[in-house]
């Protein structure tokens, strides 16, 4: 068999960036790793609930939770998933498993999208639990459809994953990876309209806020809190989805088969 492959075989084997089976195999592998790490699952799912619970308690009897609850339901999962994903991919890069993976017949897209899919499953569980907790336990009253709140919360968490995957290429150590979260997310938090309505900001900051994904994530949640429907938020949802795809493309492109 060894002698039958000739130089023409280089052209016959396309350097595929992705195939459904290998993407699924990667997602399955990452989910199996997560399943073995029960404490991480518990933290990912319960931590946002604790934070929401604290806020509900603090502002008990005021409309604060109804106004800002949906924002936080979108925000906390995004932060948690960003951290979890960037550390998980960094671990893969530094442990040598990625080096061997890149010598095997698997596309770079299979690795990145497989990771994103696995974390999207976790993000969905997380979003369902936190929205359920906010509504049924804390008494959050959302004027818009609750299903859309869940959808946007899931998308926000997946966006957190995708940004974490993309950003992990910038980190060489765990210390750096942990600091990427404030680096990537905090400027977005400051300019997204949470601290000051965006139309009152200096013009340049307002422009900057328009190219950052969190602006759209929070805009959608604000609209839903105020009774918005699918027609109101579909533009935001499309932009968030676009950022997710963009971050995954960057993540796949920065994965290198050859390293220095």
């Amino acid at each position, binding site marked *: 068999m060894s002698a039958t492959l000739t130089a023409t075989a*280089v052209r016959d084997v396309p350097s595929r960036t992705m195939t459904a089976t*290998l993407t699924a195999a990667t997602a399955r592998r990452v989910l199996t790793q997560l399943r073995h*790490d029960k404490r991480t699952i518990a933290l990912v799912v319960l931590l946002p609930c604790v934070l929401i619970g604290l806020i509900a308690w603090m502002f008990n009897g005021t409309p604060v939770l109804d106004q800002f609850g949906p924002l936080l339901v979108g925000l906390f999962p995004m932060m948690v998933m960003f951290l979890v994903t960037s550390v998980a991919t960094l671990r893969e890069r530094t442990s040598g498993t990625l080096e061997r993976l890149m010598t*095997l017949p698997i596309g770079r897209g299979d690795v990145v999208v497989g990771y994103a899919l696995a974390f999207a499953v976790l993000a969905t569980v997380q979003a369902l639990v936190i929205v359920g907790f906010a509504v049924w336990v804390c008494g959050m009253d959302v004027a818009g459809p609750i299903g859309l709140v869940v959808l946007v919360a899931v998308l926000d968490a997946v966006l957190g994953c995708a940004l974490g995957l993309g950003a992990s290429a910038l980190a060489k150590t765990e210390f750096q990876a942990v600091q990427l979260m404030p680096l990537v997310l905090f400027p977005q938090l400051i300019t997204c309209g949470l601290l000051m309505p965006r139309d009152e900001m200096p013009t340049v900051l307002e422009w900057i806020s328009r190219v950052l994904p969190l602006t759209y994530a929070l805009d959608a949640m604000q609209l839903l809190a105020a009774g918005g429907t699918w027609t109101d938020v579909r533009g935001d949802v499309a932009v968030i989805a676009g950022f997710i795809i963009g971050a995954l493309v960057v993540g796949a492109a920065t994965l290198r088969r050859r390293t220095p």
Partner: protein
Amino acid sequence: MGNNAIEIAGLRVVRGGIPVIPSLDLAVPVGQVVGLLGPSGSGKTTLMRAIVGAQIVEGGTVTVLGLPAGSAALRRRIGYVTQSPSVYSDLTVTENLRYAAAILGVDAAAIRQALTDVDLIGHAGQSIGTLSGGERARVSLAIALLGAPDLLVLDEPTVGLDPVLRRDLWELFHRLSRSGVSLLVSSHVMDEAARCDRLILLRGGGVLADGTLADLLDRTGTTDAEAAFLALVDEAAAHDADRDPAARGATP
């Protein structure tokens, strides 16, 4: 080329501004167990990474099984074992192999065979985190064996293994080579030299010697690989010193 699994001409690798492999020529014949020996820092890992297409190279050509190193077609024909075991420590042995099997498109029978080959079938359900260093190294080797590759590139696969296991693995390597598989096995333990069909001694990113152990012993008038290596290092150092008196005393 024909009967060479690996052919390297003028390979140059620079890492962090330092030429770790200044210029290297090498041929590894098909169906042999070739030992890559040399002290740590001699360029063994860098050379292996260049062969499997994981290393950014500055110049030269690396041809593997007739194709340029790093070609997509080579990815299912080379088994690569990195120096530290590339396994997911939060998965079980079988879960690790199952992922690689999905990538290579092989079935559960191949997983069982690979685990039997490395004598880990009894640990199939165990989490990697509970295994010893030597057992992890063998899981990593089992993954490399999965796709029945034509070439195995093994970076210190026997480090941390007891003598019985080492003997068993070398027997496995020779069984594979008899079936036509080519193996390049690195080691910094000179006593493994006797188990190789052919030896390549590396020093300072260059080939110090290339031949059978008998050739090397003959040439240096020594009785074991370690003595032969030391004699060759002294010879090379003397040669360097002749050419550049400033380098005198740099090597013992």
